[in-house]
């Protein structure tokens, strides 16, 4: 039995998730938003692995789920950065307030 209570992991993950949420909601740069989302995915991974370790240690589903989340995060980062690059080339900005074509 580990000496660290499960609650500690959950609280730390919750705080990390909320910091990432703030970054994703408030940053002006599209890359800053992407970085906030990466933080949120990391917080979710901590929760998955913590629940796996403390509740379902005989199975592998928790670790498996975390690996799939990491895969999706990698794919997301690649596509999002490609979008940012294409946007910068065509509109000369990555500030989300100035990218408002779809608003009209």
């Amino acid at each position, binding site marked *: *039995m*580990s000496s*660290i209570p*499960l*609650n*500690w*992991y*959950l609280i*730390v993950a*919750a705080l*990390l*998730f*909320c*910091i*990432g*949420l*703030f970054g994703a*909601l*408030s*940053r*002006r*740069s599209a*890359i*800053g938003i*992407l*970085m906030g989302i*990466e*933080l949120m995915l*990391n917080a979710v*991974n*901590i929760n998955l*692995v913590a629940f*796996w*370790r403390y*509740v*379902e*240690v*005989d199975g*592998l589903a928790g*670790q*498996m789920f975390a*690996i*799939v989340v*990491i*895969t*999706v*995060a*990698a*794919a*997301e*980062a*690649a*596509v999002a*950065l*490609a979008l*940012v*690059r*294409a946007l*910068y080339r065509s509109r000369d900005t*990555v500030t989300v307030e100035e990218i408002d074509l779809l608003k009209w």
Partner: protein
Amino acid sequence: MTLEQGIFILASLLMLGSALAMVTARSMFVAALWMIGTFAGVAVLFILLNAGFLGIVQILIYIGAIAVLILFAIMLTPDVMGLKPGPRYTGQWPLAAVMASTLAAVIVLLLVRAGNDWHIADAAPNVTDFAVQLGEAFMTTYLLPFEVASGVLLVALIGALVIVRDE
């Protein structure tokens, strides 16, 4: 306080501190460097949770691939490097701060009230070679998720290439 708890507290402080520095940094380049600190803290937590393989994957994929990719994207975009001055946040940042801190307060309050009332498995994992087990499970039980994940990666790779291609 045991050694494990000490390491946990140190790693959590490093992680949350870097995360806060990341979302408040003025330059996106500095923010990306702080993000690496956050990822390293998460890797330490994985290793504390007996998931050593995931800890290594975290370092390889997040620090080695995603963080470096983001750094490249920042360096290729002069707008983000801070060469054009401007505020860090959009006008809605106070609302975002209120929302995020409210959510944090609610979750932490709930967790503290729940106490240690989880159905916790007492046993430590009786195997240590999770990498072997994970590899076998990926080829048997979890073959479909594995194939879907490879498909997603392939599509994302081709999609990213198509998007950035010069017309």
